[in-house]
């Protein structure tokens, strides 16, 4: 197992925490927590196999969150001295005092065992920041050059993040954690007789190190070799005929539909209205817990922050809660929400399931998404067998455009490519497609989920939520799945052309 970087451990973590927590206690806070973070991110962008942009950035700072007389107070600082940390704690108390006139719900937190001093490191082999930039650029340039043989332009990017968190609270939990994630992506663009189009790789972002690009964890050569031919076929493909189709959806597309229509809809803060003015609320209101028919009986969804290589995976959340797996939808029925400590207590749900997260030292933790995943059917069908059960339909691969309303009812997604299914067999690509549905209708139309061999962990680095805006990385696992009678739009006709 890898260790936490010594230069992070060399920072005055305990001294700052002790000073801040003591000042918060002295000023009357009933709860206080201290979080110091360093988030390093490097992005590389190539265009037509040439390096176009490289950015190596980090964010370092700390935050103190207090509860004073039942009101939150939060402040963040930069100067790494005990005196400065104590002053930031005092600012947090001041923020609580200024905010008191507009607080009508006293803050209380669900109990959580004191975990003592613990550390956790994600599963990766090669720290991407230990690999020379030149080597990474050379690999991306080589991949791009191959794609350029069949494309007019090729863009490539590699995002790499290392996140280090130190947390301490007045109850006595002290966690030190480190995790790494990478997202390589290539896109090929080409002009054809009816305009231009593009196609991106469907390799998901992962909680791995640089080995994801080099050590056989993903078949890069196979995907890159296919991409120009698939793009050429797409450019020559007919425009889809709008109407209702049966859909077989590959995990590279379905993960995003899960994210938008299940992941966000089962965040309890949304269901309770805390995001009402911004990200929105949820049709899956709390009064329907245990009764809402979310989808068909083959639908089983779990949340976790524990799966290996998951982007949301971590040992302890930003409230010192040990992470775990929990049910969200069981046999098609809503049975659980994603929680933080405040909401878990408020709604009588016992302990939090560990979904508090802040994306930077300057932001207050809010309830963020666990890895929310659709379970495969043990012994279930292969993707080919699912396609074989369709008379007239589409097989959709790769995510692209997405949009969903503020209660998570109505959504519209496109994809990287779609193939017609005729009498159980693929019959070439179509262009200009989008699928549009209402969440419960869509999941209710899910007739079958694929077996474990079709299961892929997809995801994104950049899930947005909250004000001030925060981004969070999250994974979603799912098998291929079959949906009956879903509305397909022709996007050219939608544009009035």
């Amino acid at each position, binding site marked *: 197992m890898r260790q936490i970087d010594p230069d992070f451990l060399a920072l005055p973590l305990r001294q700052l925490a002790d000073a801040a927590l003591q000042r918060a206690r002295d000023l009357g806070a009933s709860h206080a927590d201290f979080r110091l973070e360093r988030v390093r991110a490097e992005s590389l962008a190539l265009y037509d196999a040439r390096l176009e942009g490289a950015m190596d950035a980090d964010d370092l700072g700390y935050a103190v969150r207090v509860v004073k007389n039942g009101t939150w107070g939060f402040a963040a600082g930069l100067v790494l001295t005990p005196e400065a940390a104590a002053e930031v704690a005092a600012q947090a108390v001041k923020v609580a005092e200024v905010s008191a006139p507009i607080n009508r719900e006293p803050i209380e937190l669900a109990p959580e065992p004191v975990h003592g001093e613990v550390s956790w490191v994600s599963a990766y082999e090669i720290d991407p920041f230990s690999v020379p930039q030149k080597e990474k650029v050379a690999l991306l340039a080589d991949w791009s050059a191959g794609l350029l043989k069949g494309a007019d332009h090729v863009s490539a990017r590699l995002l790499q993040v290392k996140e280090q968190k130190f947390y301490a609270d007045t109850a006595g939990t002290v966690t030190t954690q480190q995790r790494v994630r990478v997202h390589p992506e290539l896109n090929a663009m080409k002009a054809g007789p009816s305009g231009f189009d593009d196609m991106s790789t469907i390799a998901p972002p992962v909680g791995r190190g640089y080995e994801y690009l080099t050590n056989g964890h993903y078949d890069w050569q196979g995907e890159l070799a296919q991409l120009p031919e698939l793009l050429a076929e797409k450019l020559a493909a007919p425009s889809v005929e709008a109407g209702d189709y049966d859909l077989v959806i590959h995990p590279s597309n379905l993960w995003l539909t899960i994210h938008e229509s299940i992941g966000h809809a089962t965040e309890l803060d949304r269901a309770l209205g805390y995001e009402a003015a911004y990200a929105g609320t949820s049709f899956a209101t709390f009064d329907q817990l245990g009764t809402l028919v979310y989808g068909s009986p083959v639908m089983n969804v779990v949340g976790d922050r524990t799966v290996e290589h998951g982007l949301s995976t971590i040992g302890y959340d930003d409230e010192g809660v040990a992470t775990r797996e929990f049910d969200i939808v069981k046999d098609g029925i809503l049975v659980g929400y994603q929680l933080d400590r405040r909401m878990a207590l408020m709604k009588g749900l016992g302990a939090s399931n560990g979904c508090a997260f802040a994306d930077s030292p300057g932001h207050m933790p809010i309830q963020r998404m666990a890895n929310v995943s659709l379970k495969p059917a043990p012994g279930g069908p292969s993707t080919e067998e699912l396609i074989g059960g369709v008379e007239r339909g589409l097989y959709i691969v790769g995510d692209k455009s997405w*949009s969903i309303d503020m209660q998570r009812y109505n959504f*519209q997604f496109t994809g990287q490519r779609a193939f017609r299914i005729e009498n159980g067999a693929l019959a070439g690509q179509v262009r200009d497609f989008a699928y549009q549905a209402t969440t419960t209708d869509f999941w209710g139309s899910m007739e079958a989920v694929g077996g474990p061999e079709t299961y892929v962990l997809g995801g994104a680095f950049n899930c947005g939520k909250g004000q001030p805006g925060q981004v969070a990385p999250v994974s979603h696992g799912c098998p291929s799945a079959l949906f009956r009678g879903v509305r397909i739009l022709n996007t050219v006709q939608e544009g009035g052309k």
Partner: protein
Amino acid sequence: MTSPQEMVERALELSQADDCVVIVDEGSTANLRFAGNTLTTNGVARSAQLTVISIVGAGVGVVSRAAVRPEQLPEVVAAADAAAREAQPAEDVRPLVEGAGSSANWVEPVLPTSIGVFGDFAPALGETFAAAEAGGRKLYGFAEHTLTSTFVGSSRGLRLRHDQPTGRLELNAKSADLKRSAWAGVATRDFSDVDVAALDSSLAQRLEWAKNRVDLPAGRYETLLPPSAVADLMIYMLWSSGARDALDGRTVFSKPGGGTRVGERLAQLPVTLSSDPAAPGIECAPFVTAHAPSRRSSVFDNGLPLAATDWVKDGTLTALMQTRHSAELSGLPVTPSIDNLIMRGGEGGRSLEEMIASTERGLLVTCLWYIREVDPQTLLLTGLTRDGVYLVEHGEVVGEVNNFRFNESPVDLLGRLSEVGAAQQTLPREWNDYFTRTIMPPVRVPDFNMSTVSQAN
């Protein structure tokens, strides 16, 4: 702590590169968030980011670090220098900007914002909560004030500074049963001009309108888009107007067969879309600040003066977002990105209220949400209506309509506008995390494509 000015000078001294640009961003922010007539989260925070851009030959190295201590500075600069020495030649290489001199306020200290900026606002918000509670309304929203001081120095003598205050308030009122909802947002520089009680009153009126519910099917409707909704559509169009991508044939502004669509008429009405760093009320940085190379900005252009720019003038596309490099490739003027956007429709535009009064039958939208690109060739966007769609008949609002998903291209819309009203400062709903400084008109679209009904309310 070392001052940002000292940080710039010291980093420039340390660099062994042929040339160097140093940017320091000192930020401070304060915020209050609320839901259901009570506080949910709050906070104050400071940030300090140092960006060193080293140039060796035509190679560029960029390293950016937060909260850099003086003893760490040599390591940061050395890393940028080393990255520049190893880098491939940059395609957009140009001489660094010279002769821009120093900002008059370069030496002045940074004055951060604090929770005190809400000293008057927070009690007023508390009173508004009480009034809303008494009136059967629940208020949700967010108030934020940030102050960012940006210092740009270069080995060619640049010493430029810009202080950017940015404030915003979003207020969302809902009926007690959460069935009716209305939204208003304002941009402000310091919250002294924010009247939260008046905003709440305007939302209360909209909730009254919504008591009469009218269900309408999907279809094309004559639609009045208010300034906020217009801002969200035009901002996306601005973001899609990079000259480099247009030249590569991959945007709606690409000319079939090569080149760009600059010079082509997009709107039949005399619509002008422009940016101006000195526009009153929405002032923004008057020089280019590029922290990293990208398709739409060049680090070599740092410090380049920004002037008022017409992107669309009298309905004709006149400029795209340029770097000096892309301007040479396209043969068009250098028109870099500017952090505000203004749309006007000629003389004599009417107010939204007057436009409602002259509407025989149509929809009045409050704002648009979850706007995403569907097709870059046409810039077809999809998204939702949100927090109030109203039916207007015979010049009056007669009730609230269900929400819709739309599919529309802002470029195509420009060509179909039948009326452009009087422009006013507004806060975009969807994009105000990134873009708050806009002056926009309400517009009338004769056939807005409401693609499907959304059950959200």
